[in-house]
């Protein structure tokens, strides 16, 4: 076991991906000499060369469009979008091409492209640097959408994403980049949880809290706080947003009878809405309360001096947990 920050764990995972497959490439803005603005690709260009770790021109549509071309030629690009708010120039390439080309070909085309996106708020940044656009991608058939909550998952999941023959949109919780945890970098990934599986992080019996990315830590803290009030919270880290691991989700909700979904993203039309609908359809008779959602209001991400009010925190999660007992 080695103690690593999430940034470092992703870096080690990317290094493994480059070592394990000579076709793997890294491309993005400032990923080379600088090692990315969050240092996730630190040192990789030095060790693997400019042909495999590519500082691209400043054009996100170009990054994804050329990655698709490279993939058609047998390469496996791992792209970095510098910040969540800058994925939109690439949105057309992702939605209309990356997600649909296999379907268009009726099978023969595979596009093993990973799109890494640091996402979410809480870092005191200016506009476009704190967004949570994951639902837009989860809504798009033809993409796998995942998010890691901490270093151990970051290390494993980025390698699994690199090995996936499908496009993977890989959301990294940027405010957790400097969180540390033990990571097993010695043993391989044979026993690792599959990329599309959710993980029951903290078992509990009274209420299920579903979360992913930056909210995994917050919800874990909420579970600890709730246990002080005599409430047993089961925390499930969804990890995969498309597809959803509904088996794990339903099993937990059938056990607890209550569910709160937590994400930083806008609640309206979000991942939580999708999950709530599915739970209602499948677990209706097990429910003691409606599925509640904790997330952002239907406003753009506010200036950073307001983000503490915008983002779900311990209090808002506990408040929602309490409310599930009011029915």
């Amino acid at each position: 076991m080695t103690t690593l920050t999430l940034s470092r764990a992703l870096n080690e995972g990317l290094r493994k991906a480059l070592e394990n497959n000579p076709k793997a490439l890294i491309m993005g803005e400032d990923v080379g000499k600088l090692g990315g603005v969050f240092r996730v690709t630190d040192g990789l260009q030095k060790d693997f060369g400019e042909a495999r770790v590519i500082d691209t021109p400043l054009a996100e549509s170009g990054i994804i469009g050329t990655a698709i071309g490279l993939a058609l030629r047998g390469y496996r690009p791992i792209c970095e979008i510098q910040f969540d708010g800058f994925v939109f120039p690439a949105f057309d390439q992702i939605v209309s091409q990356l997600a649909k080309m296999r379907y268009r070909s009726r099978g023969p085309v595979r596009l093993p492209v990973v799109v890494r996106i640091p996402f979410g708020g809480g870092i005191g940044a200016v506009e476009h640097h704190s967004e949570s656009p994951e639902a837009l991608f989860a809504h798009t058939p033809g993409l796998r959408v995942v998010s890691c909550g901490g270093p151990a998952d970051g290390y494993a999941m980025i390698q699994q994403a690199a090995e996936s023959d499908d496009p993977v949109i890989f959301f990294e919780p940027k405010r957790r980049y400097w969180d540390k945890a033990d990571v097993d970098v010695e043993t391989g990934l044979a026993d690792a949880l599959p990329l599309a599986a959710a993980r029951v992080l903290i078992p509990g019996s009274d209420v299920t809290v579903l979360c992913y990315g930056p909210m995994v830590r917050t919800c874990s803290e909420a579970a600890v706080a709730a246990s002080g009030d005599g409430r047993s919270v089961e925390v499930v880290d969804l990890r995969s947003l498309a597809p959803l691991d509904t088996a794990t989700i339903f099993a937990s909700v059938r056990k607890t009878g209550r569910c709160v979904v937590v994400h930083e993203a806008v609640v309206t039309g979000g991942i939580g809405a999708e999950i709530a609908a599915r739970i209602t359809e499948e677990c209706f008779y097990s429910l003691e309360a409606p599925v509640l959602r904790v997330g952002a209001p239907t406003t753009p991400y506010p200036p950073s001096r307001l983000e503490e009010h915008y983002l779900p925190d311990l209090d808002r999660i506990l408040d929602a947990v309490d409310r599930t007992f009011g029915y």
Partner: protein
Amino acid sequence: MAVKDAGRAARSASRVPPAREPERQVESPELIQLLTPEGERVEHPDYPLDVSAAEVRGLYRDLVIVRRIDFEAIALQRQGELGIWASLLGQEAAQVGSGRALGPRDMAFPTYREHGVAWCRGLDPMKLFELFRGVSHGGWDPTAHNFHLYTIVIGSQTLHATGYAMGIQRDGAVGEDGAAVIAYFGDGATSQGDVNEAFIWASVNNAPVVFFCQNNQWAISEPLERQTRTPLYRRAIGFGFPGIRVDGNDVLACLAVTRKAMQAAREGQGPTLIEAFTYRMGAHTTTDDPTRYRLSAELESWKLKDPIERVKQYLIRTQQAEMSFFDKVDAEAAQIGASVRTACQQMPDPEPLSMFDDVLTSQTRQLADERAEFAAYLDSFATAEEGR
């Protein structure tokens, strides 16, 4: 050890030559310059510039003040008063020269680094501080000073500028006392699709817009060679309008070249691309560490081309200013610096409920409910406090 060897094998397996040898440089293009780094005035046949001593002194004052505001902002960021700051250090002349070439009816579309242009347009520097402090996303009325909101998404504003210019055409405001638009962007931005589309739109519509590219040689850690293999100003030819490279550290040249291009646009002669050749003397922003990717020798060589010093030398040499003038400007800059510092430190946080405002022109029922729910939630804390 085994890990390292595997890495080496993977490395050699995919050795690909670089796209092009870096030595193959294009010939050095002409640079419009009216004031040498030593402060000597040179004439250019295409850019005769008639400026009074008072005007040059005014430009000098602008340069000193915008550098001072920038300096204060960096210090305030270090003290935690601002979240981040994008410094204009080294680019003062490009911004003041072009900014002072604009008339009141002209419209400017900035990036996030145009603090010098903002100054020339009369925007209160506190508006910029609000943005970088995290109090607002800008929060000014673009029509108040004909200075649009800062745009952070690289290149987007060049299309907005072009569309605005098309509006000017449709208003019949092109001609003798016409108006024009200036769009600011960086060297990195020239790679964006939006910027290239803006060039096309402006060209086919003959729109009254001037594209002002500050080529400060860097896009965060990426040097110019990652964006272009041809001098940027030459891109314009391919799109069908003229391109000019100007010494971006020469405030007089920037003024003259921008004046001419804006006048041409106002008169209906269509767009111009101006490449202001300059250098980003500081970090990309206060969170960046340029020692990771660039050599200090480059910085040192650009220090000799400082945009402010040459104006001072020129004013002294030609006896257009007394020593007391420089002292007066310094004192004024210090006073402005002190006042923006205090104003920034005293700037209150916005009201939490204000985040629900201005999403749409009228509050929707849904958002009103969300707002009320959040207000009740906030109140529950106040009630809990009182209950203690």
